[in-house]
């Protein structure tokens, strides 16, 4: 039985909700298509959100990556603390990229526009998107403080009653390598906000609603109850998990105690190593986003994204640990640490939900970043992404090469070769790298970039799970996946440092395989035969 609500029945609420979802989806489509940022476009590294006047989210476009779960409403909360409702006017837009108030790294710019109805604040249209460039060092883990990572935008009104702040514009342009594209993307975010505002007014008028609060409470209440019902199915208890990442000179330990009590879940990261003087620290907002993502994926993937859905999931981490960094910790490459959170949550839940989780994945996301000069002396730079293998599960082998927990595509080889001074010698599956098991992990892949630049180019990487202690763990007796590796001219190099690539040199990136599931001795003979025919077994296995 469902609770019979006072004001909205199951039909009325569905009709309004469908409309609200179509508003954020329409805004998301507009943002994706107008964006210059590769990462927004190819990887949907953005979010569009509608909130009520309190900043509580009603709907979030479901297509965006997990990094932004819950972040926009939290940021709007910070906006409201600095700019209470009585200081907001029609046509204002608020902005920040503060990593502790926002999403944990500077390229993500959050903007929000108050929406007024008959002169009263009714809600906010909010958006966050990854900017093409925010100044500072080219995306690297080498920064020791956030100040090296680029321009920090405090919470401020970037648009006042429809007029853009000229001082902001001048500062902004001066601090980015690509002012046209970066401002173009900010404009795209404004376009999305305007669209959401227009459409929301239409819905409120059509359904004769004076405010959003009552609707929000109804949506949140129902979503919260659905999440709680899903949590209740997990046996009470505290579930532990611990992982090591490559880290820097030595591995970094992440520790989780997942306490499930009744209809709520608390993730406690006490015991996790301290923040480090490099750009791989994680702000609590990002820890919360990836914790909520993993719990939702394991327990209730169908519950829509809004405030209520995530209320039963809470997080704590000691101040100053690498999952709750404090200023001035750098965080540009927070994913190198934060992407370990979802596999760790699933690992913890494995004993309670053996059929619903997957073994470790070959994440975090990998990339090659390069900066050099064209023959005419002008600078050229870009970042090329790639992924590892997916974890096996009770039901199947892990798919080969799949982005998780993020969702980022690799650029086409032909596009890379058209636009940049590289020849790709190969891009292929990395045989034998999925962890063995009754179901094997997905294999990683290997890319070989040969520099065709006539001058040396600087390369940095996003690369993790390159040490055996950080390999993607197996489950239920399955073996870990093979760790990744980065080589220059055949020699393994430290992927956390910048390297100079001479003309003609070849850099190879080998991404990690996913973990296996179940006893390898139980693997069906026909699966082994098929892998052998397909040339996917490692040399030792073949």
């Amino acid at each position, binding site marked *: 039985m469902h609770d019979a609500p006072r004001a909205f029945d199951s*039909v009325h609420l569905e009709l309004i909700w469908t409309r609200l979802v179509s508003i954020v989806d*329409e805004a998301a489509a507009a943002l994706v298509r107008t964006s210059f940022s590769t990462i927004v476009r190819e990887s949907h590294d953005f979010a569009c959100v509608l909130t009520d006047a309190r900043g509580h989210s009603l709907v979030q476009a479901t297509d965006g990556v997990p990094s932004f779960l819950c972040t926009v409403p939290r940021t709007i909360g910070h906006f409201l603390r600095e700019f209470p409702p009585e200081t907001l006017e029609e046509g204002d837009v608020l902005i920040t990229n503060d990593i502790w108030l926002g999403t944990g790294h500077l390229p993500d710019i959050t903007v929000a526009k108050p929406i007024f109805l008959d002169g009263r604040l009714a809600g906010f249209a909010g958006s966050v998107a990854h900017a093409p460039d925010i100044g500072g060092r080219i995306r690297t883990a080498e920064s020791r403080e956030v100040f090296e990572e680029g321009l920090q935008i405090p919470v401020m009104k970037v648009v006042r009653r429809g007029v853009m702040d000229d001082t902001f514009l001048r500062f902004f342009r001066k601090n980015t390598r690509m002012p046209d594209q970066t401002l173009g993307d900010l404009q795209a975010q404004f376009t999305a906000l305007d669209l959401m505002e227009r459409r929301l007014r239409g819905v409120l008028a059509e359904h004769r609603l004076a405010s959003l609060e009552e609707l929000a409470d109804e949506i949140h209440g129902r979503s919260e109850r659905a999440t709680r019902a899903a949590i209740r199915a997990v046996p009470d208890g505290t579930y532990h998990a611990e992982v090591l990442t490559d880290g820097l000179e030595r591995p970094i330990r992440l520790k989780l105690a997942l306490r499930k009590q009744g209809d709520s879940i608390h993730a406690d990261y006490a015991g996790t190593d301290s923040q480090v003087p490099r750009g791989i620290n994680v702000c609590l907002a990002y820890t919360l986003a990836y914790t909520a993502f993993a719990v939702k994926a394991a327990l209730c*993937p169908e519950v829509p994204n809004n405030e209520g859905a995530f209320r039963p999931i809470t997080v704590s981490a000691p101040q100053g640990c690498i999952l709750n960094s404090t200023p001035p910790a750098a965080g540009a490459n927070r994913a190198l640490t934060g992407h370990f959170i979802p596999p760790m949550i699933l690992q913890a839940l494995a004993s309670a939900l053996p059929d619903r989780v997957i073994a470790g994945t070959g994440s975090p996301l990998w990339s090659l970043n390069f900066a050099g000069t064209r023959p005419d002396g002008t600078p050229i730079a870009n970042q090329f992404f790639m992924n590892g293998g997916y974890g096996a599960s009770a039901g199947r082998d892990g798919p080969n090469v799949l982005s998780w927990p993020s969702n980022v595509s690799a650029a*086409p*080889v032909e596009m890379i070769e*058209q636009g940049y001074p590289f020849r790709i010698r190969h891009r292929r599956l990395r045989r034998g790298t999925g962890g063995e098991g009754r179901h094997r992990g997905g294999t990683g*892949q290997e890319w070989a970039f040969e520099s065709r630049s006539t001058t040396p180019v600087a390369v940095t990487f996003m690369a993790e799970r390159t040490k055996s202690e950080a390999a993607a763990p197996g489950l239920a007796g399955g073996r870990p996946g093979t760790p990744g590796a980065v080589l220059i001219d055949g020699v393994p190099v430290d992927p956390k440092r910048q390297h100079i690539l001479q003309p003609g040199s070849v850099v190879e990136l080998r991404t990690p395989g996913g973990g296996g599931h179940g006893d390898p001795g139980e693997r069906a003979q026909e699966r082994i035969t098929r892998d052998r025919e397909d040339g996917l077994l490692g040399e030792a296995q073949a």
Partner: protein
Amino acid sequence: MSADRHALAIDIGGTFTDIVLYDSRTGRFAAHKELTTPADPAWGVITGIRRLLSRESVEAAAVGRVVHATTLFTNALIERRGARTGLITTEGFRDTLEIGHERKYELYDLHLPLPQPLVRRARRLEARERLAPDGSVEVALEPDSVLQAADALVSQGVESAAICFLHAYANPSHEQEAASLIAARHPQLMLSLSSEVAPQIREFERSSTTVANAYIKPLAERYLNRLSEDLTALRIKSPLFMMLSNGGLTHVDEAKRVPVQLLESGPAAGALSAAFFGARSGERDLLAFDLGGTTAKLALVQDGEPHVVHRFEAGRERRFTTGSGLPLTISTVELIEIGAGGGSIAAHDALGLLKVGPRSAGSMPGPACYGRGGAHPTVTDANLLLGYLDPETFAGGTMRLDTGAAEATVGALAGEAGLSAARAAEGIHAVVNETMSAAARVHVAEQGHDARDFALLVTGGGGPLHGCELARRLGISRVICPPGAGVASALGLLLAPARVDRVATISRPLAGMDWAALEASFSAMEQDARTVIAATLGATAALSIRRGADLRFAGQGYEVVTDLPAGPYGPDSEDMIRAAFERAYELVFSRRPGVATIEMINIRVSVTGSAAEGALDPEVPETSLGEPRTGARNARFGSEEMDTPVLDRSRLPAGVEVPGPAVIEEAMSTLLVPPGARAVVEASGNIVIHLPLAVTRQGQHQHEVV
């Protein structure tokens, strides 16, 4: 009887093969439905033609034109019934097809089913060769490596192979060389070359398209040979024309060469037909809306032509989810499919919200009211309880609907959420309409349009029933219901011009373009297209040539497909092309970035040719005598029950105006005219429903559901 008096249109669908015989002298058309024979589809076609010709006393020799559309190849991809296929790639890239985009089409499902490549790794082999992005040769093709790969494929029983080398869009010579080496050694092995099938940059999409082509090629070859022979045996002498996904026709050899272009031929015919009937009511900008048992389809018609796009997804893991299928770069009439239809099941979800679809009761067991054991409330059950359907005359009286069964299932649903049964029925109708309008709204907005500028053209069993309410939600004020919607799609086949689309990647900045080279590329593509048209229609066909290009601002990753002015181009064309792109860009995005450099990635030509036999002018069905009003029933509009007259469409003469509320019944569909609206029977045979603007803009009329 003159030899070109009659035309035959054949549309093979999943269940029925529709055949229409059109008499160009009288404008009369006759239709026949034959059950599709999937094991040997030509058999059903031939049987049907024979029956129809004999019924109409028309001799086979009097058929001057045969046009054909089929879903056979699409279904072969969905059901994975294609040939054993191989792939030969550049060394180092055999896995491009499998690695794909590395992305998930849904974020939260840990066990997401992913589309598997059509060719497994053991049959993906490599040849030694390498081209640079400009097409220059870096490593010459090594013949032994090609032959070894081909031998290995043949020894694995491969019947059809794709060849896809890096940068082959810029230089086809290595692929061609490889093909001739293989053809000499293995003449029976069918080959598909990426430089011929999909000569566009982006290796994954090009491979995926070429492989899909190779996968269905043997099937297409066998089927089309068989059908041509059987038609000849029937003494039909006219050539067989095939409908392409883009709404054009081509000849059989071209269809056999690149069958992947035929995947959406059926829906393309439907869209052409919609455009035709819309034009008869003076509407050239339409949303064509077809609602069947499980699926709603929407197509955009602009300025009288269906909107054509250059991407498609085949064999989706989840039918209504973008990204869950195999990406193909073919030109196709754009169609969005929504998981909503008469059989869509209504249920409360985990949040206690009323959801309708995409789960469907299909036709077996079907809606509860079909009385075939359907235990779930569906859209058709709700429509019955709302008084929109007549239990006695449904589907031409072939089926008696069970009102009691509908009441029981809808009542149970209502009980779950404390609703009245009437509110639940009205809710199902409203929710399915809102679901469809949400999809339509986002789609139309993505094209940079406002739905209110379009008329809605309704077909299918459910289109006329839901059309007016969908229109109201979209702010559309005119709804067009053509006569006899059932045969409309096959009729569209007879409307199609011959058409050839060609594409090539050039990938250069617009500024500093080598205009002579660009003009030469366009001319070469146009020449190639003319050759195909000439082979289809003869050398005298009247041609229309259109140029286009995929353009973007430097730094962007997506291009905007832009219609360009006619050639020939020279240095003074730059401003014109820039202006065309900026206009197209602003239409979609309503703003322009401050980036000056424009890149031209792909260039396109589309050549259409029309045969001489003149325009299609089907006669309007004759009106029967007798009182149009056959009765009245209580129908529910929003929260209000209204006494609603029921009319027989076949007795409504041109010029009659019917005020809403009214129900206008036809053999296979029911048109619902809501209160406040006005239906006009036109001389064209169309019924046009005018919705009052107050209703559409405010959505606050008395039939407002919420």
